[in-house]
C-alpha cells in the first residue's frame, strides 16, 4: 500500500495530515466571518415570527451533536486522549441540552407558551447550554493544546467513556430540574423580549471562553489533530451565532434567527468532518482491497506457472529415464546376441525383464496427476501382462490388485519382487496357472501372494533368492511359504502413507 493510503487509513492523526485541511479551515473561517460581518448591520431588524425555527434548530443540533459525541468517544477509545473524552462530553451535552431548550422555549411546541417551566426558564436554559458547552470545549482544546500526551490508562478507557456519558446526562437532568423547579430563585434574564444586563454579561463571558477555545484550536491543538482544527471552525460559527443574536437584541429579530442558523451550522461541522473521514477511509479500504486482490491474483499466477514449470521439468526427466532404460535394454540385447549358452541367455532375459520393470514404474508415474503417487493396480497388471506374453503356452497368469496409491520407493522394489516370483513360477515344469494378488489389509498393510498349481518345488524358492529376500526386507515385509496343491508365497508389507 502507498504511504499516503496508510496515513489516511490510520485515523487522520499526525502533523503531516494537518497542512491542507488547515488552509481549508482558515479559508472557510474567513468566508464565514465576512458573511457574518455583512449580516451584522441588519441584525436588529425584526424578522418574521416563525415559531417552527426552534424545533428545526433543536432537531438539527440534537442529532448532529449526539452523533458527533458518539463518534468522538469512539476515537477516544482508540487514542485514550483526555482531550477527546472532554470533547465527546461537550458534544453530548450540547445535543441533550437542545431537548431542554425545546421544552422550555415558548411557542416551540405549544402556541404562545412553553411545555415546562416559568418564563425565565428558556433564557436560563440557553445560558446554561451555551456555558456548559463552551466550558467543556475550552477544557478539551486546552487539554489538546497543553497536554497532548495526557491519556487514560488502557484498562480504564471504557469506564471513563461510560462515566462521561453518565455525568453529561446527570448534568443535563440537573439543569432541567434547576430551570423548571428552582427558576423563581434565580435572577431574571429577560425583561419582556429584551435581555437583562446579567444575561448580556454572562453571554459575553461565555463568548470570551469560546473565543479562547477558537484561538487555542487554530494555534495549537489543530496542528496535532485536524479534529480540533475543525472544532475551531465550529466554535467560530457558534461565536457568530451569539454575536448576531446579541446584535439582534430580541427574539425573532433577523440577527436572532440567523444566530440559530449559525448554531445549527456549528453543530454540523464536526459531523461533516467525520463524514469526510469515513469517505476517505472507505476509499482507502477499497483501494487496499483492490491492491490485495491484484497481488493475490499475481502471486497465484506465479505459483501456478512455477508448478507448471516443475511438472514440465519432471516429465522431461522421466522421459529421459525411459529413453535411457531403453538404451540399457539395447546394450544388454547387443551383448546377448552372440551368446548361445542357454543359462547365460536366460540370465540376460531376466536382466531385461528387470529393466522393463523399472521402465514400467516410471511410465505409471508419468501418467499420474501429481507426478509422485500412482495406483499400484495397473502397474502390477502391466508387469504380469509382459510376463504372460513371454510365458509358455498353456500357462495362465492372473492378477488381482486393490487400488493403492504408492510412490517409486515402494513400487520399484515391489515390482521387482512380483516380476521375480512370477517369472520363477512360470518357468517351472508342470505349472498351468499362476495367480498374483495384492490385497489391502486392515490398517496400513498389504499382502502380496503369488501362488501356482505346480508340484512342490525343490528347495525354498523365495528364501533362496537374494533379490526377493533383500527387497522384502527393504520394504519392511515378511515372507511366508505354504505348499498345498502348489506353492503359495505370501509377503506381508506395511504401506507407506501417501501424502
Amino acid at each position, binding site marked *: 500500500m502507498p504511504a499516503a493510503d496508510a496515513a489516511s487509513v490510520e485515523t487522520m492523526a499526525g502533523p503531516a495530515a494537518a497542512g491542507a485541511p488547515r488552509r481549508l479551515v482558515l479559508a472557510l473561517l474567513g468566508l464565514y466571518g465576512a458573511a457574518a460581518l455583512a449580516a451584522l448591520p441588519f441584525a436588529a431588524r425584526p424578522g418574521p415570527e416563525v415559531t417552527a425555527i426552534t424545533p428545526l434548530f433543536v432537531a438539527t443540533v440534537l442529532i448532529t451533536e449526539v452523533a458527533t459525541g458518539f463518534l468522538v468517544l469512539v476515537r477516544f477509545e482508540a487514542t485514550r486522549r483526555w482531550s477527546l473524552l472532554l470533547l465527546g462530553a461537550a458534544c453530548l451535552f450540547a445535543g441533550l441540552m437542545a431537548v431542554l431548550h425545546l421544552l422550555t422555549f415558548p411557542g416551540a411546541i405549544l402556541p404562545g407558551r412553553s411545555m415546562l417551566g416559568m418564563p425565565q426558564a428558556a433564557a436560563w436554559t440557553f445560558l446554561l447550554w451555551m456555558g456548559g458547552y463552551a466550558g467543556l470545549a475550552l477544557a478539551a482544546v486546552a487539554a489538546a493544546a497543553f497536554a497532548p500526551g495526557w491519556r487514560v490508562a488502557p484498562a480504564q478507557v471504557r469506564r471513563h467513556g461510560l462515566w462521561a456519558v453518565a455525568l453529561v446526562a446527570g448534568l443535563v437532568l440537573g439543569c432541567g430540574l434547576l430551570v423548571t423547579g428552582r427558576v423563581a430563585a434565580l435572577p431574571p434574564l429577560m425583561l419582556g423580549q429584551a435581555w437583562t444586563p446579567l444575561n448580556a454579561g454572562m453571554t459575553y463571558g461565555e463568548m470570551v471562553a469560546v473565543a479562547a477555545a477558537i484561538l487555542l484550536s487554530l494555534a495549537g491543538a489543530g496542528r496535532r489533530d485536524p479534529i480540533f482544527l475543525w472544532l475551531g471552525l465550529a466554535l467560530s460559527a457558534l461565536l457568530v451565532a451569539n454575536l448576531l443574536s446579541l446584535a439582534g437584541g430580541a427574539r425573532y429579530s433577523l440577527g436572532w434567527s440567523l444566530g440559530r442558523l449559525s448554531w445549527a451550522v456549528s453543530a454540523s461541522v464536526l459531523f461533516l468532518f467525520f463524514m469526510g473521514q469515513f469517505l476517505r477511509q472507505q476509499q482507502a479500504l477499497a483501494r487496499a482491497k483492490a491492491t490485495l486482490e491484484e497481488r493475490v491474483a499475481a502471486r497465484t499466477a506465479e505459483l501456478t506457472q512455477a508448478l507448471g514449470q516443475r511438472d514440465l521439468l519432471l516429465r522431461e526427466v522421466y522421459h529421459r529415464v525411459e529413453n535411457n532404460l531403453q*538404451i540399457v*535394454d539395447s546394450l544388454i540385447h547387443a551383448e546377448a546376441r552372440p551368446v548361445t549358452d542357454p543359462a547365460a541367455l536366460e540370465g540376460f532375459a531376466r536382466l531385461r525383464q528387470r529393466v*522393463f520393470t523399472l521402465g514400467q514404474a516410471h511410465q505409471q508415474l508419468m501418467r499420474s496427476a501429481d507426478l509422485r503417487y500412482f495406483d499400484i493396480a495397473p502397474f502390477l497388471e502391466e508387469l504380469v501382462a509382459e510376463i504372460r506374453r513371454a510365458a509358455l503356452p498353456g500357462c495362465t497368469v492372473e492378477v488381482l490388485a486393490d487400488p493403492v496409491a504408492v510412490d517409486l520407493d515402494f513400487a520399484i522394489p515391489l515390482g521387482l519382487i512380483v516380476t521375480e516370483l512370477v517369472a520363477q513360477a512360470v518357468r517351472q515344469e508342470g505349472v498351468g496357472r499362476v495367480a498374483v494378488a495384492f490385497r489391502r489389509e486392515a490398517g496400513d498393510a498389504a499382502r502380496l501372494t503369488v501362488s501356482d498349481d505346480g508340484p512342490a518345488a525343490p528347495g525354498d524358492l523365495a528364501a533362496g533368492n537374494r533379490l526377493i529376500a533383500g527387497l522384502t526386507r527393504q520394504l519392511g515385509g515378511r515372507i511366508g511359504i505354504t505348499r498345498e496343491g502348489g506353492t503359495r508365497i505370501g509377503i506381508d508389507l506395511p504401506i507407506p502413507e501417501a501424502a
Partner: protein
Amino acid sequence: MTRSTGGVLIVEDEFLIAELLVAMVEDLGLHVCGVAATAAEAMAMAVSLRPELVTMDMRLRGEGDGVDAALHIHAHVGARVIFITGSREPDTVARIGTDHPAAVLFKPITFEQLRQVVTRLRQ
C-alpha cells in the same frame, strides 16, 4: 508372410535403440528397409522405400516430431505406423492420438510387445 511392400522403416534418432529395433524386427522375420533419424529423413525414405510398417519414435532430432512425420507418411504412403515413445504423459498420448496410430508402445519396449503388435497389424 508377404513382403511385397518393402519391409519395415525404423525411425529412431538414438543409434543404440535403433540397433535394438532392427534386431527385433529381423528376429520377427521381417526385412528392415531403412533407418531414419529425423522427421524429414523419415518422410523422404518412406516415399522412396514404400515400407509396409514404420516404427516411429515420438521425439526426433531436428525439426518436426514423430506425429508430423507419421501424418505425412500416412497421407502419402499409407504405411501402418507403430509409435514408440518414452513419454506416457497425457499431452503426448493425446498428440499421438491425433494421427490414429496403428499402435503405441512405451519405452522400454520388449520383444513380445513388438511381436504381438506386428502380428496383429499384419493379419
